[in-house]
């Protein structure tokens, strides 16, 4: 599996609602990143 604990996180670039495009690599060396995957908006999940 590509995204197990201990493996390199897959790189991504995605549009954000208010901050333009964001790439995982822009935090490399400066920030830990907490990804919070949601099911759908308006569900509380």
């Amino acid at each position, binding site marked *: 599996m*590509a995204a197990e604990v201990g493996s390199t996180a897959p790189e991504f670039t995605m549009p954000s609602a208010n901050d333009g495009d964001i790439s995982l690599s822009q935090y490399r060396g400066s920030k830990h990143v907490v990804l919070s995957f949601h099911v*759908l908006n308006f569900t509380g999940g």
Partner: protein
Amino acid sequence: MTFRRIYSRLEELDAQVLGISCDHTASHRAWTMSLGGVPYPELSDWHPKGAVSKAYDLWNEERGASIRAVVIIDKEGTIRFRQTYQPGTLPDPQTVLAAVAALS
């Protein structure tokens, strides 16, 4: 909102929260406005739909949606924590905070 309450603590620990779902950014805007705004970026895994969720093995093909999960990546780009959650359950903020604190 799991992360709103612990956001300032996460900032102190040099952690950036990124919310991800396969909704369009316009939907995200409406959603975050309905909450009075969230203090971190909400990203759209939209084009192609679910591509990033799939890369992280967090895609429910049947529902056509991401699986609820938290993935913590350290400054070197290595995955250090990964947990999925059943529908209707939410991540425990203290567990997330402890996992981030353990990185430093």
